[in-house]
């Protein structure tokens, strides 16, 4: 197999939609990186940081698909393909780690070897997270948090902690762990639905089945004590909204407070651990400057909340999309249950849970932004991400219920553009004051405003299209894509 085909192999292992999303996202990021780097506006440190990010995304989203391909190749008795899947990783390692390591000038306090080593780590950590069994991947998150915490100041920290001394063994351990898990997964020792299955297999199961099957598998895997207990008290034709939410499931399922608290327990625990870790880390570095670590904490929280809001929007829309695609799932039930056919009730049931989830996030985001003493323009950008998430939910709810979902490529492009806008809108206002990015702030703000306006205009048109579709449909529970 030639090098070009080896380059294509991880793409073959990815589901179509994911392929479009990953390809679009990486293409946009690389293009921005190359264009900006060519203008000479990026310093060595910014180039290094930007490449770490691209590296991370590529190895988290794309390369793990080679494992899926190798597993399938083994099952189909295609040893050459199985071998080529490994070779493709080596080719990508050369292209994304070695070559940039040689071309990108190392930041002031790092040597070339340390730069190369850090690129390798930014590849190995996400790959390990995706390829190791679920219970081990949790440790990778902790490891990643440590690395992420160190990364903004990696260049400065490197000399102090003798970066090479800890990074090289860490890389070796990660590679050995990946090799072990790779062998185990490819040989079919674990089922895709089991607890110990690598994240990449679980994600593929969700994506390829593309229906309620993934949700069913998720419910099946969850222990009983962590299972959502539905609140069925106010259900029936007299309570259409509550009844509709029971059938929509997922985030929409009405639950009692005790159940809701229990199901969010893990998220709260993990977030608390994360916050505690951040505080400890910052305090150990700057015990005398409390304001500095507080600022760092709030900036990270604002970031997390911004992305959290986007994730809530995305998860809600994906769930609804699956309901409206599965002809043997909830859709026939919704269509034939008496008393649930009113469009207004349906829209309220579809919109209320994700929007109510956004409200506390919006308040938290506001608190964080005010604690950071952000300038009004910066504050507006942070809040804009959540307004964008809300608009995204409203528009896609209309499109789904109206049976007017645009084709997958447009959705991919919109998703990529939205991700880039959210990232930049959150990243720049919270860190630009402290960073040395040479882009004139005014220009960047103009670009951001233009981007948000363009996205807003597209979303408005799509929303209108969805609304018209909903009005024209004989009833809103007709499946999409048939």
């Amino acid at each position, binding site marked *: 197999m030639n090098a070009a085909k080896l380059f294509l192999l991880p793409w073959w292992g990815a589901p179509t939609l994911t392929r479009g999303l990953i390809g679009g996202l990486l293409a946009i990021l690389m293009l921005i990186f190359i264009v900006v780097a060519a203008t000479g506006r990026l310093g060595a440190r910014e180039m290094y940081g930007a490449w770490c990010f691209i590296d991370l995304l590529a190895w988290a989203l794309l390369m793990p698909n080679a494992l899926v391909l190798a597993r399938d190749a083994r099952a189909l008795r295609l040893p050459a393909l199985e071998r080529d899947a490994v070779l493709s990783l080596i080719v990508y390692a050369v292209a994304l780690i070695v070559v940039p390591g040689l071309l990108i000038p190392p930041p002031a306090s790092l040597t070339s070897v340390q730069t190369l080593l850090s690129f390798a780590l930014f590849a190995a950590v996400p790959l390990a997270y995706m390829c190791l069994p679920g219970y081990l991947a949790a440790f990778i998150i902790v490891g990643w948090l440590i690395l992420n915490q160190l990364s903004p100041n990696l260049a400065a920290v490197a000399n102090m902690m003798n970066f090479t001394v800890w990074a090289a063994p860490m890389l070796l351990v990660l590679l050995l762990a990946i090799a072990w898990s790779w062998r185990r997964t490819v040989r079919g020792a674990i089922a895709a639905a089991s607890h110990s299955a690598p994240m990449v297999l679980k994600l593929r199961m969700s994506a390829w089945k593309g229906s309620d099957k993934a949700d069913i598998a998720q419910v099946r895997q969850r222990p009983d004590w962590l299972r959502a207990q539905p609140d069925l008290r106010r259900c029936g034709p007299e309570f259409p909204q509550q009844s509709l939410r029971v059938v929509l499931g997922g985030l929409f399922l009405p639950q009692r407070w005790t159940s809701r608290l229990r199901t969010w327990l893990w998220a709260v625990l993990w977030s608390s651990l994360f916050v505690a870790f951040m505080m400890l880390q910052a305090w150990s570095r700057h015990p005398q400057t409390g304001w500095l670590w507080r600022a760092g904490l709030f900036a990270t929280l604002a970031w997390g909340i911004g992305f959290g809001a986007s994730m809530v929007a995305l998860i809600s829309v994906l769930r609804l999309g699956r309901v409206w695609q599965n002809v*043997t799932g909830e859709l026939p039930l919704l269509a034939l249950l008496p008393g649930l056919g009113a469009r207004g009730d349906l829209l309220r049931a579809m919109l209320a849970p994700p929007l109510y989830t956004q409200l506390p996030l919006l308040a938290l985001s506001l608190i964080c932004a005010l604690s950071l003493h952000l300038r009004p323009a910066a504050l507006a950008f942070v809040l804009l991400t959540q307004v964008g998430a809300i608009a995204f939910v409203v528009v896609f709810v209309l499109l789904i219920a109206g049976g007017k979902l645009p084709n997958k490529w447009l959705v991919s492009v919109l998703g990529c553009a939205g991700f880039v806008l959210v990232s930049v809108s959150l990243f720049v206002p919270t860190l630009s004051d402290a960073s040395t990015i040479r882009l004139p702030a005014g220009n960047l703000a103009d670009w951001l405003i233009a981007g948000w306006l363009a996205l807003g205009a597209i979303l408005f048109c799509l929303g209108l299209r969805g609304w018209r579709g909903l009005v024209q449909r004989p*009833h809103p529970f007709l499946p999409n894509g048939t």
Partner: protein
Amino acid sequence: MNAVLKSAANDTAWPLQARGIVHAYEGRYVLQGVDLTLAPGSVLGLIGRNGAGKSTLIRALLGLLQPQAGEAFVFGEPALRMSDASKVRIAYVPQQPDALAWLSAAQMFDYLSRFYPKWDRAYAQRMLDRWQIVPNKVMAKLSPGERQRVDLIRALASQPDLLVLDEPVAALDPVARRELLREIALRAGEQGATVLFSTHIVSDLERVASDIAFLHEGKLLLHCATDDTKECYARLWLPADQAVHVPADALSRRRHDDGSVSCVVARDAGARWPDAANRPGARIDALGLEDLFVEIAE
């Protein structure tokens, strides 16, 4: 028309009716002008090969799909704009039911019972016990067969006037299958419910269906009383020298290696076989339901 009169009018309407339904997926036609009417109290078995369009037809009949042409009616109302009064009278079990996997069977029944005034709690409980389904186990953790049983209990407990089952026995063991068929016959015989079910299993049709409809390549080739199939349809075999006389309206035709032809033919309005049956060397073979199905579908 006032509400009472309207309701009375709907009661006398056909439970299900399809007029010229056409539908295609990605340019491939799966239904090509299907007309079908279900008489009240009948048990119609819909039979056809995989991909013949059975599930699509059922979904179009119930307004779960908007056909590209044609129209379906449920109790006299357009299926796509059905009233709540009609919805209460219908129960539908899709092939491989996936709905409400996050609820237990008990929770599901509790939830659904509020929508159906005639919900039979005792029946639901009895059937759960009989089929040994743990009522508090979340549906996602049940086997496919158990989930199908829960969905069948759900459909039957609502005591519908119209019961539509899309391959209901696919995941059932023989004992449960027999029980279901008995229940269908009981509902139709004693309560006057109308039943439409699709299946591949011809013996099930013979056991309970009062009528059969055979869907082949998107067309309804045959629709008659089950008992009449042997009388009305047969295989006509013509020797090679008579092969050109195959009736134009034959339901199927197959040419053999020796040049002879066999085809499925129907009696005309006067209960006569086509003229070709009287040709020298021609032969009429009576067909069982399964042979008839194979002969047409092959």
